[in-house]
């Protein structure tokens, strides 16, 4: 059952920012509604006392994909179906497109937006680990300010981010990869159809003469929020690729997860499976 709220269909970004700036009542932005409405139906504390919804579906500025020399800017209002079908994104950021194709059901992907996925910051959000791998940053706007923040800094705690009450993510900015990176996205669910991620992994790697020049590893649903494994990545730099190294990297990721999460009810399962899955993914990327 949905509580009463005020609903405003914003016509443009300016109106959204104006509405956000003088909001004395608890306001949320709604786009696809695939998190907001279930949250309200199930009386989640994040949504049950929302008094005003600002709908951004008609804000066309947020539905564009822009390309600059060095970056691609993805409108936060793009649905996952939009992303899966976007040629430029498929070409530049295949991991993001693959992850997007595995979000929820087709009905969900037809509505759910990438901006919503980021703001909701569920531990299992599928788009986050590829975005972290691509070093995505967020363009955040309020009536008085436009700022840019790295995604990894934005994600604070599960279901909690640095987004201020008067702010909206307008674009996700991703630097183009200049070199020929290889990579892949892996998602493990409890079933094949429409599964919440039990874990997800994104890996990007650039090598020269079988030496790692740049390795990026990110994971979802294995720590409280989606994470990049910086230390493991740094360790790998300039190392020669062989099976032993891939095992070492997988072990180090396992160790990092253990350090971050401590022992949880799911550790007995997740820790070995993260290591095995990362090893498999690295093998698949590098040996195929």
């Amino acid at each position, binding site marked *: 059952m949905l509580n009463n709220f005020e609903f405003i269909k914003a016509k443009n970004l300016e109106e959204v920012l104006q509405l956000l700036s003088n909001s004395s009542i608890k306001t949320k932005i709604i786009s696809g509604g695939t998190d907001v409405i279930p949250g309200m139906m199930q009386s989640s504390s994040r949504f049950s006392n929302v008094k005003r919804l600002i709908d951004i579906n008609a804000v066309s500025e947020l539905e564009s994909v822009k390309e600059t020399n060095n970056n691609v800017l993805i409108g936060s209002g793009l649905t996952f179906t939009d992303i899966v079908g976007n040629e430029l994104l498929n070409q530049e950021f295949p991991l993001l497109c693959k992850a997007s194709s595995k979000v929820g059901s087709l009905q969900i992907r037809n509505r759910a937006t990438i901006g919503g996925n980021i703001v909701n910051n569920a531990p299992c959000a599928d788009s986050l680990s590829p975005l972290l791998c691509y070093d995505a940053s967020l363009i955040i706007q309020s009536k008085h300010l436009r700022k840019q923040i790295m995604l990894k800094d934005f994600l604070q705690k599960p279901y909690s981010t640095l987004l201020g009450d008067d702010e909206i993510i307008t674009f996700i900015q991703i630097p183009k990869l200049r070199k020929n990176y290889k990579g892949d996205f892996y998602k493990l669910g409890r079933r094949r159809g429409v599964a919440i991620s039990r874990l997800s992994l994104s890996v990007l790697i650039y090598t020269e003469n079988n030496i790692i020049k740049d390795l990026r590893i990110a994971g979802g649903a294995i720590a409280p929020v989606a994470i990049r494994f910086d230390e493991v990545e740094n360790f790998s730099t300039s190392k020669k690729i062989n099976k032993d190294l891939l095992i070492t990297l997988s072990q180090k990721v*396992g160790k990092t997860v253990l350090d971050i999460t401590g022992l949880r009810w799911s550790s007995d399962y997740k820790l070995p499976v993260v290591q*095995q899955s990362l090893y498999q993914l690295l*093998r698949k990327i590098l040996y195929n």
Partner: protein
Amino acid sequence: MKKDFSIVGKEVIRQDGLEKVTGTAMFADDIVLKDILYGVMLRTTVVHAEIKSIDFSEIADNKNLTAIITSEDIPGAKKVGAIKKDQPIFCFDKVRTSGDVLAMLVGNNEKEIKKLLTKIKVEYSELPILSNSSLAMNEDAPVIHEESSNNLICEYPLRKGNVEEGFKNSDYVIERSYSTSYQEHAYIEPEAVIAIPLEGNKGVKIIGSIQNPHTTRSVAASVLGWPLAKVRVEQAELGGSFGGKDDTMNVLAARASIAAVKCNRPVKIRYNREDSILESYKRHPYKMKYKAGFNVDGKIKAMKIDIIADGGAYASMTPFVTWRSVVQATGSYEIENVETNVKGVYTNNPYTGAFRGFGSPQPVFAQESLMDEIAEELKISPFKLREINGYNSGSVTASGQILNSHEVTLKKVLAKASDESGFNDKWEKFSKDRVQKDFIIGSEQREKEFILDKEQFIEPENVWRRGIGLSCSFRGCSLGAEGIDAASVFVSLQNDGSVYLHSGLAENGQGLRTTFSIVVSEVLGIPFEDVFYLGIDTGYVMDSGPTVASRSTIMGGGAVKDATEKIKRNLLDVFIENYNIPQIARVEFTNGMVTYDKYSMSFKDLCKLAYNKGVNISAVGWYAGPNVDWDEEKGQGNAYFTYVYGCQVAEVKVNITTGEVYIENITAVHDPGKVINLLGAKGQVYGGVTQGAGLCLWEELNTIDGKIKHQNFDELLIPTSKDIDNIDVHFVEGEEEYGPWGAKSLGEPTLELTSAAISNAIYNATGVRYRNLPLNLEEIVLNRKLSPASVKRGSA
């Protein structure tokens, strides 16, 4: 026996398909009535407690509130139940489980009255919670129902031969324990019911998503304190049931009726998914200990079985469900010495009752896993072990019943399933391919040290393992010695040759309307389209017992055939008299024509003629099963009047690094007797197999201290279109004297076999034996249960 059929056994399009594909079929919540009120439930916040007080004062004057209904408003029975009257319509002294309801608020604005629920103050005095069924019979266990001295719902012993002697004379004796978990019916339509007060002294009419209208009627009548005939129950289109829309719906119908009578307005109750999962009953979790003695030649000599079924807070169907278990616990094998003890016990967990399979999926999982374990001990193939021990015609069951009244097709279905799937060769190959000892991630040694050793990383080519497994079962048809077993229908021919068909058994989506109409069409040789099955309404047709136990086709189909043949005899007399032909003439009823030699008349004209001559062209059909008997002390007797046999083979691949199991194929071979509608029969198998696979792999429904963790489809994972690659169906039609042309049962055997076949295939793939369902990711990797300790949603 008739061999050439005009419609029986063909692929017939279901009779109620048109309204279903156009969205015009009327399910209970689709029905709109003027001046309707809604009922919403005040549900307990604790699991086991005495109710000290309920304070409605803060809402009493609310303008949206038409009535508050509690136990005090009930004029008749305050507690109901299929066998034991132990379930309160509204709790008044105690709450016993997390789904319990204390009161119902009634008003015309459902949203607004829901908001009032939080303003009601209930004072509880909490009691210790009994959540472990193994502890239910302990001296110090909290007693759930104070009118009993302990928590025993029912107990069934079965004794055949001398089991201790049997073990002594066995070359091997092994003992194994198995368990199964809850399964939610997960019908996609949540519960909905409307009670409508009728004018004057006519009573009340109930329309709802009700599996067994006559049962609902007797419950509602007892609660109202009224005669049965003052309550009429009509079934709305039913959005899935699988045994699930029985007790829960009876209670909801009773609540709605009380409110409707009190307010003198129609009252609707409609549940959302969370309400449905919280309050509805589930499949019983079983804990099963099996001990088997067998010889080197593969012959099983003795078997001792102890089963505890968790009945939850209310008895519901537990005494019948567990009775089927005691009859079938040794599976489809002839064993000289058997001792079985099955107990159903009360706990504070969600209550459990009827669910497709009805006490068989659990022992079939255990018994058929055990068969593979025995084969493993003996180093013989699972196929061969079943060949050696499987029932033949004339075999004697554990309850001492001689299987001689029907064709025992166990070996036929086993051979067919094995041939179709290429079982033996694949099983051999996968057994050999299996790399032993590398499947150790997460094993005991990992509990302190979580970082894998180098040698534990699996090479990509070894990640996915393939396996094949089989399982067999025999299943008693219909109710057996557990209940009165008869069914009735009313068939009424119109003077233009079209037909009304009224049945006491209900369409639950399984295709009963179509099956019954096919029987009429076949007997009279008329187009299927001329038969009109009318919705079930207790006002129009006799109580035929419940639509359960895969009994509709054999019992109801038998009754339809009986009624139709009675009418046909009357028509025949008219035809013979009209043409003045010999009484013994072989008159044919085919293609809408009635023919003998050169005499021919359209069926329509014959109906008209009979009508004009004042001949009765309607009939009540009746079908009663032959006698069955049961000795409660020894567990011996002719439990069911006939049986069906099935064999399923599962082919899976298992990811040994993540625990993911993917089902590549299920070959399902069943003997349902004569198939009436091939299209519907296949649908039964596909659906049953899929539910069985769900029970095995995905459908985790946890309780923590009696509270349910998985409350909606985001967490309760039932199979989707992507989870099973293929299902291959074959029928072996065994000879049978009962039922229409020997048609028996199919709905439930399809489900009961699947989990064991999958688990055996996983063993074939991995060399690891899993004995506790569900086999989710964690179970496969760790071979033990791993669940969060809190019911908080969304915890990782």
